[in-house]
């Protein structure tokens, strides 16, 4: 079918179709304001409001659902994105080389989590939290456009300040940074009082070699069950 024979083709196509076309052709999520600006060009002078865009998107998404189509419009990275529905993933996945899913490593994810919650943040500040150098990891994150340089900190050496990039929201399916899980306050304000350090009395000096537990030490562990280590699957 060409545009000449399309019975629905009008002088000025309806907003829903314009939005659909824009979403279809865009390589990345489009914000409502940008959609409004782009869709407004073909209209006879009338301003298009973000509300109208939102309505059009909702209708479009509703149409897809009602018609049982394979698409949906997702709200992601401060905008809208046309994507396939979840149930078609197995078919599409087969089309691609599985190696394409290069997931982020623990080190990368940890650093990214710190940047996401503490931005803007310098490399030295990240290292203070992780306790290891993050040079290589920062480079990987920059290369993958998950973080970006936001500026430089006005301290000696003027180190770069990093923050998350738009691609970060896309990669994790977040609408905005406000969608991140809530950061809980860390612990009470002071540790338990130093006991008569029974710990220090009982123990023999450390011996090199096997880091095995001595049986007599086993009773020492106090009640609290530590959280499961997150990186052990």
């Amino acid at each position: 079918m060409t545009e000449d024979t399309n019975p629905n083709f009008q002088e000025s196509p309806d907003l829903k179709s314009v939005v659909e076309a824009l979403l279809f052709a865009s390589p990345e999520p489009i914000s409502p304001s940008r959609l409004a600006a782009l869709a407004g060009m073909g209209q006879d002078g009338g301003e298009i409001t973000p509300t109208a865009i939102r309505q059009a998107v909702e209708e479009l998404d509703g149409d897809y659902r009602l018609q049982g189509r394979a698409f949906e419009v997702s709200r992601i990275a401060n905008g809208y994105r046309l994507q396939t529905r979840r149930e078609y993933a197995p078919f599409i996945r087969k089309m691609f080389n599985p190696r394409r899913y290069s997931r982020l490593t623990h080190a990368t994810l940890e650093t990214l989590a710190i940047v996401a919650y503490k931005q803007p943040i310098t490399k030295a500040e990240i290292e203070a939290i992780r306790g290891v150098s993050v040079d290589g990891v920062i480079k990987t994150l920059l290369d993958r456009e998950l973080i970006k340089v936001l500026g430089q900190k006005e301290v000696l050496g003027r180190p770069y300040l990093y923050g998350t990039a738009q691609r970060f929201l896309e990669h994790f399916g977040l609408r905005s940074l406000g969608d991140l899980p809530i950061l809980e306050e860390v612990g009470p304000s002071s540790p338990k009082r130093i006991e008569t350090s029974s710990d220090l009395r009982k123990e023999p000096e450390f011996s090199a070699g096997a880091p095995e537990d001595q049986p007599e030490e086993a009773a020492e562990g106090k009640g609290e069950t530590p959280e499961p280590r997150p990186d052990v699957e």
Partner: protein
Amino acid sequence: MESAPHQTVLEIFEGPLDLLLYLIRKNEVDIYDIPIQRITRQYLDYLNLMQLLDLDVAGEFISMAATLMYIKSRLLLPEDEREELEEEEDPRWELVKQLLEYRQFKSLSNELHRMEVRQENYFTRSQREPPPPPPAEEAVEEISIFILLDAFSRVLSEASARQPAEMAPDPFTQEDGRRRVLERVGSGGKVSFLTLFDRGEARTRMVVVFLALLHMIQQKILRVVQEGHFGEILIERLSTDDPEDPTPEET
């Protein structure tokens, strides 16, 4: 890309804080009341083992060891001198705060990972170019390196109980170690970590085998999984292509 695999010093991508959290969990002690002497001793044991294996132990590990020793010395002050100490902060508190904050980000990164995996179910029309494969140095184990080190140190200490010393140089090369690991792991299914080592064989040989295993984990040829926390450690083959055995076409 990978230069001279036989000389490559393996880097540890988990840091001193990971090791401390691991020890705290393994010992089932309260993070707010860390038995500093015991944890310090075990920490140093791991450090020694990593150095024995010639792993590239980052300076941060050494500096954390110094911090632990310092805290220990503060806690060891005689009672009367401790009086004034108790007025101030618990010497462990700085470290505890750091551990808690770090642990929080570890669990957040876990959450990010779940979100990442969930997101793999959605496709857009113009898929971005697949991102470049992560550089080899970035490869990460499925389980903590410390769990592996732990298991290996047990193998080693059992071996040392039975054999006094090795005199003659062992002709067993790194390539032999590599071949053995691949052979025993086979192509499908999982095998126990322990099957990689023979009873009563030389410790030096065990080290070679273990290092070969670590290399192949980093190259994502093998994967290590564990059945539940502190369960049996299993090795499985991840891919069949072996980047270290390319038969050079030219020359």
